């Protein structure tokens, strides 16, 4: 063990058995500090969410909806239970991810509740009520996940099962009986009264698969091949995996008409491939493949072409007025513009004028009522969330865990970019949900599962008293 720890312990009492004592002491002290920090942040997150919900009621109606507050007690209790469970099974888990997920979920609930008020939904028909219930379920599943997955390396064993399940989930929506054609793309599945977006779960499963696969295959993917113009090109037979993922992504575009999901999975794979192999040529090959595929799709598929036109020429009256045109996009931009720098205030704008304001356009709703300041705050929260995941990637010992942490956090960041970038016209709009904020059970459950996995991964990183970690810190 290195010098700082010895000095931190110090004193003659530790003489003789210093290393062991050190380890024990660190284990006893640091976790409590991390969990206490988390508790503090969690209380701030809950207070912020409660304030947002109260402001929504006061701003839009003028009185507090006590029933809604009571209902919100359930996920609040559950998130506190999650915190307690962490103290036992993941005492050294990252202290930031749960508070961030909580405040984002809370803001989402507040805004969805606000839209319910504007649209006159109440009872079980209210998206906000359902979102609270889904939040409770999502947190409960996160608790279960944390309890069940005590060692993340187990996941590596199931990488091919994960792949299989992931691909099946991706293809589910196109199965006639249960597939449901949504407003934008076929990404919904309905079983009985239950409808969900399987793609949200597929992203976790695929991240597990990519991480597991790349850890074993990285050597052949990175070491062999010819160098051309300073780039080491892969062998033709090593191109297999990237081509498979590419075909899968293109299939999502063609069959499911969903550009966003395709971009999400392909981007996830590319970044994990790059991180695993360290070869920029993979990025170039991948981007060329995707751009080429998207270009061909834009030429051949009217749906994709229309998406591009909506994006590039949104304010053209002809594009604006036509069926499936840029009406929604432009209305969302109007909403954002109306918010301006400081926003209209919660409950005081007209976010309900945008179609799908509670799901795809939740960020436009929040931007309208919280202003640019609010949007920046939300973006910062996402950025910190992603950064915490990357931290695990930097500090972790086992490559599977590192890759998985990077993959899971990157997919959240990429999804935020695709959705908000679509709403603000950086890229063509696609029908993805904004993580934690948007209405939708599958999205909430999937993203809270990511929270559980990141907790598990970060806990493992700190639990291992490796000289690498400690020495690296010194």
């Amino acid at each position, binding site marked *: 063990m290195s010098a700082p720890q010895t000095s931190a312990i110090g004193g003659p009492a530790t003489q003789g058995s210093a290393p062991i004592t050190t380890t024990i002491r660190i284990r006893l002290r640091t976790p409590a500090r991390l969990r206490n920090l988390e508790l503090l942040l969690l209380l701030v997150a809950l207070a912020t969410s409660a304030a947002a919900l109260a402001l929504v009621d*006061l*701003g839009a109606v003028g009185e507090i909806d006590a029933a809604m507050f009571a209902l919100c007690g359930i996920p609040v209790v559950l998130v506190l239970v999650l915190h307690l469970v962490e103290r036992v099974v993941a005492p050294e888990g990252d202290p930031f991810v749960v508070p961030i997920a909580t405040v984002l979920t809370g803001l989402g609930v507040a805004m969805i509740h606000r839209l319910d008020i504007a649209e006159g939904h109440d009872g079980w028909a209210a998206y906000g009520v359902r979102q609270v219930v889904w939040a409770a379920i999502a947190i409960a599943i996160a608790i279960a996940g944390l309890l069940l997955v005590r060692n993340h390396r187990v996941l590596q064993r199931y990488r091919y099962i994960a792949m299989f399940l992931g691909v099946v989930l991706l293809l589910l929506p196109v199965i006639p009986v249960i597939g449901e054609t949504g407003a934008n793309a076929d990404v919904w599945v309905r079983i009985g009264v239950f409808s969900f977006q399987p793609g949200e779960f597929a992203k976790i499963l695929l991240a597990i698969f990519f991480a597991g696969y790349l850890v074993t295959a990285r050597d052949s993917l990175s070491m062999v091949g010819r160098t051309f113009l300073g780039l080491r090109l892969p062998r033709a037979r090593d191109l297999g995996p990237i081509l498979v993922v590419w075909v899968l992504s293109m299939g999502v575009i063609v069959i499911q008409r969903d550009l966003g999901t395709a971009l999400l999975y392909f981007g996830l794979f590319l*970044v994990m491939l*790059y*991180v*695993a192999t*360290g070869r920029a040529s993979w990025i170039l090959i991948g981007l060329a493949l995707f751009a080429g595929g998207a270009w061909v799709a834009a030429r051949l598929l009217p749906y994709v072409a229309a998406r591009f036109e909506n994006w590039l020429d949104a*304010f053209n009256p002809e594009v*604006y007025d036509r069926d499936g045109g840029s009406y929604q996009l*432009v209305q969302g*931009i*109007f*909403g*954002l*513009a*109306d*918010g*301006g*720098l*400081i926003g*209209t*205030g919660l409950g*005081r*704008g*007209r976010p309900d*004028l945008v179609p799908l304001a509670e799901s795809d356009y939740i960020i436009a709703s929040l*931007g309208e009522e919280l*202003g*640019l300041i609010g*949007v*920046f705050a939300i*973006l910062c929260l*996402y*950025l910190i969330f*992603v*950064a915490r995941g*990357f931290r695990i*990637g*930097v500090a972790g010992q086992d*490559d599977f865990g*590192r890759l998985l942490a*990077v993959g899971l956090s*990157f997919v959240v*960041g*990429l999804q*935020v*970019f695709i959705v*908000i*970038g679509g709403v*603000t*016209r*950086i890229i063509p709009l696609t029908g993805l949900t904004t993580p934690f904020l948007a209405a939708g059970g599958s999205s909430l459950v999937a993203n809270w599962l990511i929270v559980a996995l990141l907790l598990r991964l970060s806990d493992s990183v700190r639990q291992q008293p490796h000289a690498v970690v400690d020495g690296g810190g010194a």
Partner: protein
Amino acid sequence: MNKELRRVSVLILAMFLALCTSTTVIQVVQQESLQADSRNVRTLYASFSVERGQILAGDTVIAQSVASSDQYKYQRVYPQGELYAPVTGYFTLNGENTGLEGALNDYLSGRANEQFLDRLNAILTGQNPRGATVQTTIDPVVQQAAWDALGDLQGAIVAIEPSTGRILAMVSKPSFDPNLLAGHVQSDVLANYDQLLTDPTEPLVNRTIAGDLNPPGSTFKLVMSSAALSSGDYTPDSQLPNPPSFVLPGTSTTITNSGGSACGGGETTSIATALRLSCNIPFANLGSQLGYDTIHDQAVAYGFEDPDIQVPMAVTPSVFPEPESEAQLMLQSFGQGNDRVTPLQVAMVSAAIANGGELMSPTLLQRVTAPDLSVLQDFAPTVYGHPISAEVAATMTQLMVANVASGVASGARIDGVDVAGKSGTAQNGKDDPYTLWYTGFAPADDPQVAVAVLLEDGAGLGQHGSGNGNAGPIAKKVIEAVLNR
């Protein structure tokens, strides 16, 4: 692996910076142009959801917002209905707002720059934003008197305070009830609007400042006399040719004076007499002597052809167009031909003469006050220009007093008060009804009001009405209403 992670971190950072940039561009940089987009109904809904400020005439509320239970928190109400429709205009869901509702929308809806702190305050304190109150210059007594005096006739009345340019009365008939267009049920509003729009009497048109302009007839002789006297080459006694009838050069059109005879006795007649008896032939010859440019310059000095006169609604410019021939110039010289004027322009001519040659900019605006009663803007009188000198104004006043006392503008004569006036009876088509005018001011030595009365459609009398006989008494009632305040 860590090197790659750093690079991917940079990528993530770049993606988020792109999002920060795009949201900043939308929410701050392009905010105003996006809000101004006509497809942005938020701006409309927002304006319907604020408690819009009142519009006042004196102490009389002529427009206000009352709480409503539907999706737009407030209902705009016009307690005085038709009477003030030309002033208030209407505030509607389905199109452009008119009148003060349109011209002062920023103030009334609380969105003017001066109200920024109030808006911020409203956001911070959670109050509903409220618009500013607009105090107009309209005197409700004069407005009512003018409304009553016009009766069921089709026409318009403008009364101006000459020393300030404040508009005391603005009446246009037939009028409409703005409440019909301020409803929240779109289909009803549209039905009402279509009905008003297709009404042949054009009730939606504010005839005082817009609409199909009318020829000024003999009221234009005020501009002619001003031009002649201002040129320095003429006095009231300058002689003009005085034949009983006159064939316009290059045509076979014969013009006569309104009586059909010469203007008083003699081969020639003075400008004073020609004006007093409102003779056409001497003025036709005066126009020919002065030339188009001199008359045109004088007309422009009075406000003709100025597209920027706003009260604060835009005023349709009155015109004295370049004639194609000498004959046209001579016709235009007594207010026929292609001359077209608004009642406001005619009142401005009288007001300038009344105010010693100084023309004040006409306005409906007195003051804008915030909900906390602090004054956002006080509209001080502003000078429009000096179309004539004080001397010419004094001479013109004498001539106009004589018009009323012993001339053909006697219709507005008031016992014990020197009224200065000029009537006008303009011909339209060969068989079309006349356009009847009367303009003037009183008292001549200390003018309190300048007025212009327009009667369209010959006051219902076809070609049998006269400016003096029909419009004169109406002007008299308006003047009396001001003097009796």
